[in-house]
């Protein structure tokens, strides 16, 4: 078990990391995340006996690592750093073999066993094909995998990976993280991975530690660490955090600089008649532009409903998978009447939600400006034997505007006060 106890670490009398306590146990796959300059690499250096903390201790199985010889630690702890340049054109095979150095006495040459361990390490990282090539001839990502092989050749108990996915293609990123996680489980390693990508970290790590400004902001499972509040505190930016349907882990979506949570800045109110995910982009864009937005009728658990709920928009909801009732329809019409502009998105229409289009008719009837986003065209999403298309024609004849797509609709309302 590797522990950092209240360590303060820095360079030239300037503390970069302050009073940080972190524990890494066997079998744990811990992700260290945080903005640039927050001290992630400094923590790795402190944990690997490269940069001594001015305060606090780093213990490996209760022994202070700064009181043991460097070689002893190197036999149990391996680090893959961010910088993977090699000064001379050693062959990949030779570089991976360097990982055996801590296990060999000063003048001993590598033996069969050492070659075997290196070969296996190269096999695991899919770098065997490069074995006899000079490492300087490889791409950044290929070199990184070789360095990981070198670390594995050390047969460590603790593995510290500082941004191991930095230069890798997505397939290799997944490969490396899968490998690291598998080895952690199989061999009972204690692994700490510094990752830039919050989503990768959230998906792969059982535990996360979020560091900002040299201090630990949060530790725990991804669900508890990756939250909009924590990210705002650490990165000073607003993002959207949702639970990924496939993995049940939080995933972060970057939004533009305009915060969605701000109060409306314009007087115009827009009512969105949407569903099936067609409304999400417009909800965001309209809110970002400062409009007051409402939505209806949305069936509960529909993706537009979930988004509207997350954005806390005034809305009319119907039970999941249910036909829109007269009562719900009436309330929808009321809400549409309260707005200045009504936008109908490219929803597929069936008997169950045809009343939504009816609401647009009513809105036009009382003189509200109505925009119909015809993307995809109504003919492809009319499951009502032509009734929806007929209603659409009716609304257009009554003066509604037909828009090519959502962007077109936005362009038409952008200038409104």
């Amino acid at each position, binding site marked *: 078990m590797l522990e950092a106890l209240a360590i303060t670490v820095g360079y030239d009398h300037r503390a970069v990391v302050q009073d940080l306590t972190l524990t890494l146990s066997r079998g744990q796959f811990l992700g260290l995340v945080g903005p640039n300059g927050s001290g992630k690499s400094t923590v790795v250096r402190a944990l690997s006996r490269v940069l001594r903390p001015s305060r606090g201790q780093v213990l490996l199985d209760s022994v202070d690592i700064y009181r043991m010889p*460097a070689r*002893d630690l190197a036999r149990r702890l391996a680090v893959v750093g961010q910088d993977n340049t090699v000064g001379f054109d050693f062959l990949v095979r030779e570089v991976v073999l360097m990982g055996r150095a801590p296990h060999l006495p000063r003048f001993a040459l590598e033996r069969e066993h050492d070659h*075997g361990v290196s070969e296996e390490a190269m096999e695991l990282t899919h770098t065997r094909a490069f074995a006899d090539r000079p490492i300087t001839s490889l791409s950044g990502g290929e070199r990184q995998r070789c360095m990981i092989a070198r670390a594995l050749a050390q047969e460590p108990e603790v593995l510290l990976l500082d941004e191991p996915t930095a230069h890798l293609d997505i397939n290799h990123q997944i490969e490396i993280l899968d490998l690291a996680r598998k080895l952690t489980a199989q061999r009972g390693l204690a692994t700490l991975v510094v990752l830039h990508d919050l989503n990768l970290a959230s998906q792969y790590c059982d535990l996360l530690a979020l560091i900002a400004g040299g201090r630990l902001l949060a530790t725990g499972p991804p669900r508890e660490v990756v939250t909009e509040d924590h990210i705002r505190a650490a990165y000073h930016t607003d993002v959207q955090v949702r639970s990924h349907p496939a993995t049940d882990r939080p995933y972060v979506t970057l939004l533009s600089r305009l915060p969605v949570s701000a109060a409306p800045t314009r007087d115009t109110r827009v009512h969105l008649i949407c569903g099936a995910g067609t409304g999400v982009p417009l909800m965001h864009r309209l809110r970002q532009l400062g409009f007051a937005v409402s939505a209806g009728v949305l069936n509960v658990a529909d993706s537009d409903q979930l988004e509207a709920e997350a954005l806390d928009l005034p809305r009319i909801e119907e039970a999941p998978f249910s036909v829109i009732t007269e009562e719900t329809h009436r309330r929808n019409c009321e809400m549409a009447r309260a707005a200045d502009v009504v936008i109908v998105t490219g929803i597929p229409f069936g008997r169950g939600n045809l009343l939504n289009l009816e609401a647009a008719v009513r809105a036009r009837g009382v003189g509200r400006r109505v925009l119909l986003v015809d993307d995809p065209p109504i003919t492809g999403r009319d499951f009502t034997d032509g009734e929806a298309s007929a209603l659409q024609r009716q609304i257009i004849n009554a003066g509604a505007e037909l828009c090519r797509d959502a962007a077109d609709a936005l362009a038409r309302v952008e200038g409104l006060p």
Partner: protein
Amino acid sequence: MSPSQSAARPSLLARLTTLVVGLTAFLVVTVALAANIGAQPIPLSLIFGGARSGAESKLAEIFWHLRLPRVALGAVVGMSLAVAGGSLQGLLMNPLADPYLVGVSAGAALGASVATVLHLGGVLGGAGKCVIAFGSGAVTMALVFWLARGRRRVQRDAFILAGVVVGSFMWALVTLVMTLAGQDLQSIVFWLMGNLYGQTEWLVVAVVGVLAAVGCVFLYSYARDLNLLALGEEQARQLGVETEKLKTGVILFSALVTAAAVSVSGVIGFVGLVIPHMARRLVGPDHRLLIPAAGLLGAAFLVWADTLARLIAEMFPVGVLTSLLGAPFFFYLLKRRPRPA
């Protein structure tokens, strides 16, 4: 992975053995031939058979007390410079590093120049100039080291800068001494050019030989650490290398062998710079092979260069030849280079 696959490439030990045996044989042949060549050709039968007549014993005298000491010293100097150069290139990870970077040569040059001007050459049974040169070289090295040593650490970049700064200053002083030298100027210049002329004392060979041997053995002990250093200083530390001791040790012993070499031969250029590159092309960047290869090649190279110099004229400075040969050869190496260092 079948056992035959890992055996397909000869083991490091096998390669090292082949290398050492091969190059040593080459060196021995070189030395034998070199001692043979000269104004008076000496038949090999004489060397192995012993003198059988007065005329032959005179030739034997020339061989054992005139030629061989000089050739042996050439081998020792060549080995020292090449090993020091190779070690420093490994430590500083700079292909342009050479043993003179430490500033030792400049210091030794100053010592030798001052000794010449003050006519101290006769002191200590003729070895006065050498001893003074060695001493001033050592002092200069200490100065560079002190300058480069930051807060408990030796920064590699600071070290190169300190060596350049101190070296420049020393050379400026040498120039000053030269302007004040008067009649002794020629003697100083001759020393500076780098030559093995007049080296006939077996004692000198022995002393320098021991110093060089000790230094080179210590430098060789750092071979694996130098390999690991290629991954970066931080990474090397994480692999258990005590980088501060490594830096201190390599710099110290390089300076030692360089000072020993320069004190007897003056400033012979290009051996320390080019031979390690040649060796690297031959055996690769692994210092466990590179350092012995560089040492043996350096020894052989300087013996050949000095033999050529002797053929031109008994007093011809070998340093002139090494520079004349070395520069175009280095140029050729650069041109051939398939990829940057």
